């Protein structure tokens, strides 16, 4: 501790250089933090759980999956025979259909700004089954719970993510007309009853409409079209989510569903949500690989070089001082440590500051990192980023400063003074 003043004074010695080194570190830590944010979120989604796991049932041979809604009830029971009390049944379930449309009637004017994407589902399942929403406390989920409650009184209610709402320039209570794109000629008159919570940010662009309401709209379509059902009427079920207590229950439910004659036309498959998401992310495999194995190491390398350069210059300028310190009795390893601590302090503080600013700005102001990949519209910077930032700064500072610190340690006193005199 008694040496710390030496470290601080040396950091203050050339403040401009220290600040520039710190800024360089901050920029690199920012980039790596953002990359890690995406990668860890994806890793989390694709990590197999052993308990309280979720399974996805989808059409076996077709992407996107489009099953008849008549599958929904039996699938939500895990394909269990109603008369078999020993059959395995899911703890909870949720069915998803997808409605894609636009709030703009004129197809020529349709854009990302007026895009509308909704899960067709049982609204109350948004609280208990949606990934990450199911982990929120009651207090955190309060706005969503209130909106779900309101949908019981407002059948054509819609819950819309705050960001999408902002893009549409609408507020809770407004009415919107949505013109269907995957359900052609189906226009929905919706009333906005609430929004998703800010966290998790992945639903900031999504919406939820009621399955019952949507089915009534399909019926209405049929009535108004000479009793002809909508061409998509038998394909409204995209997937069914099942919550299962453990792997054993998953295996049993898998067996029930795959053996059931009820799900043969079209055939279905069942997989854990992590496997399903992993398979879905296959399309982004190369970009994810490049982010993980090219971009991150490149940033770390550049960061190490930035620090190495700054510390090398500083060590070269201070050779005489290191020689003097040796004359006074400082051990070579003490000099090595002093230089390393200087670099580590700059690295750790810059890394921590960068990560804290990234966390605050991305989560607090942007509402998440808008990096669209698969069905993840946004990624929230995890709180772990704070220690990542500090650790990254420390690791790169250590790597970058070790050689210059070793040079400082190896200063030969007689050589330095021979040069001076």
């Amino acid at each position, binding site marked *: 501790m008694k040496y710390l003043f*030496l470290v601080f*004074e040396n950091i203050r*010695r050339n403040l401009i250089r220290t600040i520039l080194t710190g800024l360089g570190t901050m920029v690199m830590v920012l980039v790596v933090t953002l990359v890690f944010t995406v990668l860890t979120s994806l890793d989390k989604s694709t990590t197999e759980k052993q308990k309280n796991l979720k399974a996805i049932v989808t059409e076996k041979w077709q992407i996107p999956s489009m099953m008849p809604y008549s599958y929904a009830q039996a699938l939500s029971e895990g394909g269990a025979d109603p008369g078999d009390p020993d059959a395995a049944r899911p703890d909870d379930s949720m069915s998803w259909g997808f409605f894609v449309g636009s709030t703009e009637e004129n197809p020529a004017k349709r854009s990302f700004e007026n895009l509308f994407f909704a899960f067709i589902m049982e609204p109350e399942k948004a609280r208990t089954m949606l990934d990450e929403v199911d982990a929120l406390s009651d207090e955190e989920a309060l706005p969503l719970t209130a909106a779900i409650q309101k949908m019981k009184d407002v059948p054509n209610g819609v819950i819309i993510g705050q960001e999408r709402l902002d893009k549409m320039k609408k507020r809770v209570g407004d009415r919107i007309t949505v013109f269907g794109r995957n359900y052609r000629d189906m226009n929905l008159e919706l009333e906005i009853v609430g929004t998703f919570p800010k966290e998790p940010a992945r639903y900031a662009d999504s919406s939820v409409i009621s399955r019952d309401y949507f089915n009534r709209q399909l019926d209405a379509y049929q009535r108004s079209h000479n009793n002809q059902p909508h061409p998509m009427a038998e394909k409204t079920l995209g997937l069914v989510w099942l919550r299962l207590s453990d792997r054993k229950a998953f295996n049993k439910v898998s067996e029930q569903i795959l053996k059931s004659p009820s799900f043969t036309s079209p055939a279905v498959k069942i997989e854990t949500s992590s496997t399903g998401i992993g398979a879905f992310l296959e399309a982004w495999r190369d970009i994810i690989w490049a982010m993980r194995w090219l971009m991150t190491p490149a940033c770390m390398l550049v960061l190490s070089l930035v620090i190495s350069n700054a510390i090398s210059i500083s060590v070269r300028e201070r050779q005489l*001082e290191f020689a*003097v310190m040796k004359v006074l*009795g400082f051990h*070579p390893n003490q000099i090595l440590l002093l230089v390393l601590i200087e670099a580590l302090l700059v690295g750790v503080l810059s890394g921590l500051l960068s990560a804290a600013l990234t966390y605050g700005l991305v989560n607090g102001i942007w509402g998440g990192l808008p990096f669209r990949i698969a069905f993840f519209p946004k990624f929230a910077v995890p709180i772990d980023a704070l220690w990542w930032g500090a650790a990254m700064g420390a690791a790169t500072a250590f790597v970058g400063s070790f050689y210059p610190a070793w040079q400082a340690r190896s200063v030969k006193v*007689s050589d330095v003074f*021979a040069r001076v*005199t």
Partner: protein
Amino acid sequence: MTDSAKCVDVRNVHKSFRRGSEVVDVLNGLNLTVNEGEFVGLMGPSGSGKTTLLNLIAGLDRPTEGEVFVRGEMISSMTESQLASWRTRSIGFVFQFYNLLPVLTAFRNVELPLLLLPLSAAERKKQVLTALDIVGLSERLHHRPGQLSGGQQQRVGIARAIVTDPSLIVADEPTGALDSKSADEILDLLGELRKSLHKTIIIVTHDPRAAARADREIHLDKGQLVTAQ
């Protein structure tokens, strides 16, 4: 003369340096004894080996051959780590260009060697204030080197050299960068240290006036003692 009266005992020391493929002999079988409390001036032309000899006595370099004893300890066989600890306790070094750390105040510069000793902050402060008082710079504690004159900087350098209370002070051209008035003040101060604190002082100098202050002048030429007055 008994060994206990000897402060420095240099025995048959050779020192050579390698310059590319060439080996340059700087000291050739040099013998020298400096007694406790003695003030010795080392003189000689450039390249005669004065500074090399001083570095060997101060434990900053090792002889190629021969032995160097300081107060009975054979420093020529110590490891680098042992030498570092030994220098903290036993040697005060005064440089020609002061070599104070520019980012530190006079107080902090003088405190620097004390950081290496097991002393509390209060003990360090007491010793630093005493050393700065001895050199007459009690009023300049919080000045950085850039805010001090050359003479004042050298005084801080001397305070740093005596703060650990070493028995031997070595000085390499301590007046070489000073005007004559400041040089006289520094020489007075060194003389006073020797007289009142009984320090053994060895200075390397080109300045005959500085050498004249010493008890004994030693002249080197081509790595050998030529005269001792």
